[in-house]
């Protein structure tokens, strides 16, 4: 295989994962597929730009992030957030604390963080936990933590207040923490 074919093949293998990621941001499969396709085409058109300094996946992910930001900016329809019932989320935070403000159950130890991040299945579990978040919560969280946008920018794009964004981010983190605790750390014997 010539290098171009090899690159093509590698990108094809990567594509489903990238689409799943795009979909966490853009909850419209066609638009998500488009963003991924744009990113892959950008790589294939200028393969010489990939210098191998980072891994191919990191490189493609970087380009995809820009494509997703473009898509979020240009698609007004996508930007509009469906109203979500907030009651269950408030209950979610309330349930963590006693009336005196102490935690009901203290978070359990998660062990060595560096070791965790090298385990392949951990990222799969994290992905499943992200997919379980309510759409609006997931979008704000992904914009903040994956696209690494500042809160001001997220607020501008989604026309929400900063207080609103902080609450959504807090809820997302609490939900993800619980999901990981249950589905990853909870099942593992401490080493």
């Amino acid at each position, binding site marked *: 295989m010539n290098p171009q074919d090899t690159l093509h093949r590698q990108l094809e293998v990567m594509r489903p994962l990238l689409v799943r990621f795009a979909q966490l941001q853009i909850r419209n499969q066609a638009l998500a597929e488009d963003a991924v396709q744009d990113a892959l085409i950008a790589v294939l058109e200028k393969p010489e730009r990939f210098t191998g300094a980072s891994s191919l996946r990191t490189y493609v992910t970087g380009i995809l992030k820009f494509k997703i930001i473009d898509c979020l900016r240009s698609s007004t329809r996508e930007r509009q957030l469906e109203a979500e019932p907030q009651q269950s989320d408030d209950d979610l935070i309330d349930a963590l604390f006693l009336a005196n403000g102490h935690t009901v159950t203290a978070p359990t130890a998660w062990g060595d963080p560096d070791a965790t991040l090298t385990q392949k299945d951990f990222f799969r579990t994290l992905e499943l936990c992200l997919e379980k978040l309510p759409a609006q919560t997931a979008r704000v969280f992904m914009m903040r933590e*994956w696209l690494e946008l500042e809160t001001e920018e997220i607020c501008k794009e989604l026309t929400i207040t900063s207080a609103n964004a902080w609450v959504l981010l807090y809820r997302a983190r609490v939900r993800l923490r619980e999901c990981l605790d249950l589905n990853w750390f909870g099942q593992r014997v401490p080493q």
Partner: protein
Amino acid sequence: MNNPDKTGLKPTCREAHRLVSEGMDRELSFVERSRLRVHLMVCDACTRFNGQMGLLRSAMRGFPDDSAD
């Protein structure tokens, strides 16, 4: 006051949890930072929560991981 996070003199876990999260998204005020720091010194539960939030952030920054297929 009705805000359950505002608990007077002593910072509670409830306030500390929220400050840990908000501190990842905005610069906390001097007072907020001090209250959080004092609370983390004496509270294992919130210190653990703080560490877990850090892990979550590192994980997201490295996502999707090269090994994740």
